[in-house]
């Protein structure tokens, strides 16, 4: 039996509320897949449909090609790591890890053999007899992972398991989760609202807006080639300029914006004369020289200049109060630092700017 997960036209309704709306998703065998979205977007609902705690209102969930309808969470080849970990507080570390083996009636000797192997794997050998409440946060995290791996799941589901840890530990656990995934070859489906986590660990990321999936791709894809304005504005920081497409030349669109005519890579669906959005990331700007081409230079007044050490953040005068226009210049340690109130000419390479058809943006 394979371990890929397929969701076909899956919809989940709670009374009148649509939590997941006609989602199609294929998670490949052995990959580290993240579902990235803000809270309440339906990502946990998807996880609970895969693990079997919820039956989809419409559509199917297939694991390894097998339709999972009517199969309970205790009969599915999945294991879930809960947000609060849900370790059994009255049991020792050993008994927690062995729980899934005990309910499968494995002999005590066999159980202990596997538990010791897993304690090695999570680098907590000899801790088996401890009570879970006597463990630190990071140790609990590892025990939860071992407990889930003990039942040899085809698919491991993780529901923001790092959110309770402090920043430093969280960053270390990212590497460790990734390492465990690569060693075991188990398909990981990771739910998070933290972009850094999703980017750092995943083979592929699915970006969710309200109830549906906006784009699935490698971290590089969703950052560099967002499929629509939602993903472009949700992933990372991005500046948006609205305007009308004047003309399209060789895959580049010239858009008339409030900074004049600007040029960017044109994505499918952009038509001459249509309203569109031009996206330029803050780090893609540089201080322009006089001879730089006009269609990739903007002139503006800086209303705030922020020195951050490695970077200098410039905020430009902006008529759109809800969205800041930010430019991030690398500090080379030699050049002038533009000050607040000064006029500045900022250039960008048109290949790094993106023109997309008008659409909904993510909330800031």
């Amino acid at each position, binding site marked *: 039996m394979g371990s890929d997960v397929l969701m076909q036209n899956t919809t989940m309704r709670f009374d009148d509320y649509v939590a997941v709306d006609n989602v199609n998703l294929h998670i490949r065998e052995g990959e580290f897949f993240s579902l990235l979205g803000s809270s309440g977007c339906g990502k946990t609902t998807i996880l609970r449909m895969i693990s079997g705690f919820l039956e989809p209102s419409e559509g199917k969930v297939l694991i390894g090609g097998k339709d999972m309808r009517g199969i309970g969470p205790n*009969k599915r080849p999945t*294991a879930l790591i809960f947000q609060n970990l849900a370790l059994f507080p009255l049991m020792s570390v050993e008994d927690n890890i062995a729980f899934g083996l005990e309910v499968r009636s494995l002999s005590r000797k066999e159980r202990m053999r*596997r538990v010791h192997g897993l304690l090695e794997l999570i680098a907590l050998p000899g801790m088996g007899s401890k009570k879970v409440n006597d*463990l630190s946060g*990071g140790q609990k995290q590892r025990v939860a992972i071992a407990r889930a791996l003990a039942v040899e799941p085809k698919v491991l589901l993780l529901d923001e398991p790092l959110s309770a840890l402090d920043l430093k530990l969280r960053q270390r656990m990212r590497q460790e989760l990734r390492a465990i995934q690569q060693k075991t070859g188990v398909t990981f489906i990771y739910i998070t609202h933290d972009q850094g986590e999703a980017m750092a660990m995943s083979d592929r990321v699915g970006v969710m807006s309200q109830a549906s999936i906006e784009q699935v791709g490698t971290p590089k894809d969703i950052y560099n080639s967002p499929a629509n304005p939602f993903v472009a504005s949700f992933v990372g920081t991005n500046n948006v300029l609205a305007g009308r497409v004047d003309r399209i030349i060789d895959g580049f669109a010239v858009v008339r914006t409030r900074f004049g005519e600007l040029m960017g890579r044109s994505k499918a669906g952009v038509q001459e004369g249509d309203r569109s959005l031009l996206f330029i990331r803050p780090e893609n700007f540089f201080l322009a020289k006089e001879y730089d081409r006009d269609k990739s230079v903007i002139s503006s007044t800086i209303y705030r200049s922020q020195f951050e050490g490695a970077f200098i953040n410039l905020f430009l005068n902006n008529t759109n109060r809800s969205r800041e226009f930010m430019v991030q210049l690398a500090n080379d340690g030699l050049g002038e630092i533009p000050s607040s109130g000064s006029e500045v000419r900022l250039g960008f390479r048109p290949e790094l700017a993106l023109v997309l058809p008008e659409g909904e943006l993510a909330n800031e």
Partner: protein
Amino acid sequence: MNSQRILSLFCSMYMIAFMAYMLAPLAIMAAASFNVSSIPTISPWKGFTMEWFSILFRDRILWDATLNSIIIAVGVILLAVPTGLAGALLLMQMQSKSRNLLYAILISPILTPGVIVGISTLIFWNKLGVSGGLFLSVIGQTSFIASFCMLIFMARLQRFDQSLEEAALDLGASQQQVFFKVTLPFLRPTVLTAIGISFLQSFENYNTTLFVIGAKNTMTMRIAGMVRLGLTPETNALAVIFIVLTIAAAVAFELKRRVEKRREAVLKEMKKREDAAIPLIVSDSFPDKMPDMAA
């Protein structure tokens, strides 16, 4: 004297009066059990005796009644604790609007006067050809003691983390395994509490039992009978035994609690270990292969 001192003086006097009000009757009652006088009193003091205790221990009727009380209490525990637990589990899982109605029905036996519970139990079972006795006493008492148990279990279940049951289910446990391996161990201290409270409720019950006990006797019924026929210090001697047992139980409980508290403090100290102290899993320290997991 300033007002602060007047207030504190007043408080101490109030405390003394309060304690005297609570404890003086018990002290006088206990002292009377050692008085030679054949009516329970401490004045006049006719001399110290243990005679009333030996009369108490020779009172066959009273001990038979006590045995009946214990039999009924055990029967009530066996019926009321599982029934109360089942009711609590049901109510905690219900989401629909009928939950409130069912809740009201299930706790109504507590709100009904015991006399009514007793009479209606007797009438109902008489129609079925069962007359009063130990069996009907168990049934009658269970009808409201089960409700007490249910409330106790509900209070505990409110603090239960539902994700533990989900985790167990997710790891492959059947519903029964989830109940016996996760839910019930969590409820274990509460089961003991429910047993204790059921026992006491049953043991001291009078007004329901009065109607359903038939020709038999329980300890409370027997004491009530003794009061009617003229009280002797024998009753006081019995009360002294109960007081001593109660105090012993309370002291034992408190000692146990202190030992556990000390143990927890030690564990907390041990836990103050930095996460950084655990070795890293990544790459190098990782075993090359997953441990062999072939079943």
